[in-house]
Structure formats: C-alpha cells, structure tokens
C-alpha cells in the first residue's frame, strides 16, 4: 500500500470526473464548489487497500481523515478481549475525523471488508481559504453530530 498525491495521479479529465463525484457523494464535501474542492485536494492522497487490510488501528497516533471512494469498511473497538463492531461505512462516507480535529489517539480500528479505494486528508489545513475551511469544519461538525445522535440514542436504551 502506498499513498500517492491526487494531483500527480490523474489526468485532467479524470480529475474533473473525480471532483464531480466527490462533490455529489461525499458528505464532508457537501456544498463545495469545484474550486474549493481543488483547494482541499491539494492536501489529499489516494491509496488502495486489499480486503481485510487495517486502515487505521485503535490507539495509534495519526491524524489523517479518510474518505471512501470505493468499497466498504467496518469500524470496530476492543472491549476486554472482544472486538465489537460499531459501524459499517460505504462510498461517500468518511472516518478518522475525530483524531484529525482533536489530535488524540484513534478511538477505533477500521478494516477493509472489500477492496477499497481511499482518499486521505492531513490535519494541516492552514493553506485553505477561511470560507473553504469553514465549510469543511461545519461538515465535519455535522457528521460528528449525526454519529453522536445515533450513539447516544443507542446508549440511552442500554443504561
């Protein structure tokens, strides 16, 4: 597995097709213009994972966030010696936002359930224009809100 820069990877037409697909299907890019997407993709890299490969590992220290371009992943967490599945994510979903924003260790493991094409974005977004950065962080806030609504719903029925 190796990560390659998006900019060097595709020819212009492929790149444009990718952009349209991203803006339509990826929650974290919702409301982005093509220009804003291009800005963000300067920080992005792409990689392929085989089935069963672990993409992030619970308690490791890295701060990228990941976007699924193709494939399906499972999010799991260790409890004593058991592995508990928390969620399955698909094309257009993202994960790893938590460590990206708070710089803490990974709270869960993410494993490829099928061959996956992933995009990753680093936490250093200083080069973004404030308008783009605001949209990006607002989308991340919405994604985390959505997850917290689900988690607290599930939790409250088990307390």
């Amino acid at each position, binding site marked *: 597995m190796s990560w390659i820069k998006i900019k060097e990877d595709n020819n212009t037409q492929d790149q444009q097709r990718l952009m349209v697909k991203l803006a339509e299907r990826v929650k974290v890019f919702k409301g982005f213009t093509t220009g804003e997407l291009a800005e963000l993709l300067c920080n992005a890299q792409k990689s392929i994972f085989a089935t069963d490969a672990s993409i992030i590992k619970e308690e490791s220290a890295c701060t990228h966030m990941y976007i699924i371009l193709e494939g399906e992943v499972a999010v799991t*967490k260790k*409890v004593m010696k058991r592995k*508990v599945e*928390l969620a399955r994510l698909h094309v257009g979903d993202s994960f790893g*936002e*938590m460590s990206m*924003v*708070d710089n*803490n260790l990974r*709270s*869960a493991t993410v494993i490829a359930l099928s061959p996956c094409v992933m995009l990753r974005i680093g936490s250093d977004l200083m080069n973004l*224009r*404030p*308008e783009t*950065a*605001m949209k990006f*962080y*607002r989308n*991340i*806030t*919405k994604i*985390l*809100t*959505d*997850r*917290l*609504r689900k*988690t*607290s*719903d*599930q*939790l*409250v*029925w*088990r*307390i």
Partner: protein
Amino acid sequence: MWTNIHDEFKSLEQQRLMTKLAGYVKALNGLTPAELAELLSHAQKCTFAVGATIIKEGSNCHHMYIIIEGEVVVSKKGAKGKAELARLKTADSFGEMALADRKFRCATVTALSPCILIRVGDEAMANRPETGMKIYRNISRVLSERLRVSSDQLAWRI
C-alpha cells in the same frame, strides 16, 4: 427572558469579564478579542432558576449555549425513563449539535443551580468565515471528546 449582550458589552468591565471567561470556553478557543466582541454582539444572556428547563428533547430550536455561571444536567429518555448523560459547569457549552445540523434537540438540559447563560445562533458566523471556521473546528473537538466517551460506554454494553 433573553436580553442582548450588546448593550452590556459596552461597559469596559463587562468586556474584560467576557474576554477572560472566553479563555476557558472550549467552543471559543483561539478567537481574537475582535472576533469575540463581534460574536458576543450577536449573543444574548439569560438567567434560569433551579429546576428550569433550558432545552427540551425533541424541540426545534438551534442556539448553542455557554454556561457563565451555574450547573446543568443533560438527560435523555431511555428504556428506564430519564437517563442522565452528563453534568456541565461554568465555561462548558451545550446545544452545538442542533446549531450544526438544525435538527431536533436530542436531549433535555435542566438547571441544577441558578444559572447565567449566553446563547449564540449561527447567524453570528454567517458573514465571518474566519470566526466560523474557528468555532466549527472547536465544536468538532468538543463533539469528538463526547463521542469518544459515549462510544466507549456503548462498546461495553454491546
């Protein structure tokens, strides 16, 4: 009754107090004094008595609240009636979720002591992308922290 902070904020003393307090509020971390002043000029202040409901689960309002003074309890309807999810104190914030996604309130927040709160809506950030970026980044940190706790709790119960 909510009153605009704008008027109070004109006094230098009040201004200093707010700036000092904001230093402890995670949601306002990293704002410059000018950004903070601008934000607070859109904010409103209110006092709540012990036992008063500040936000109600299922209701449709979208402010975020910051506790200036007092303590609140966050609870949610569950299998065995009302379950307590958290207690929050001075400089903590709540209501960020509905601010972000404009959906219904997912929990009830009740005053445990007399409380002074300020509330902010997202219109305060509409024309200020620098401020908006910082606040949403801060809020996503606050939510991450909460999500880490609640997914830990949940994983143990699955």
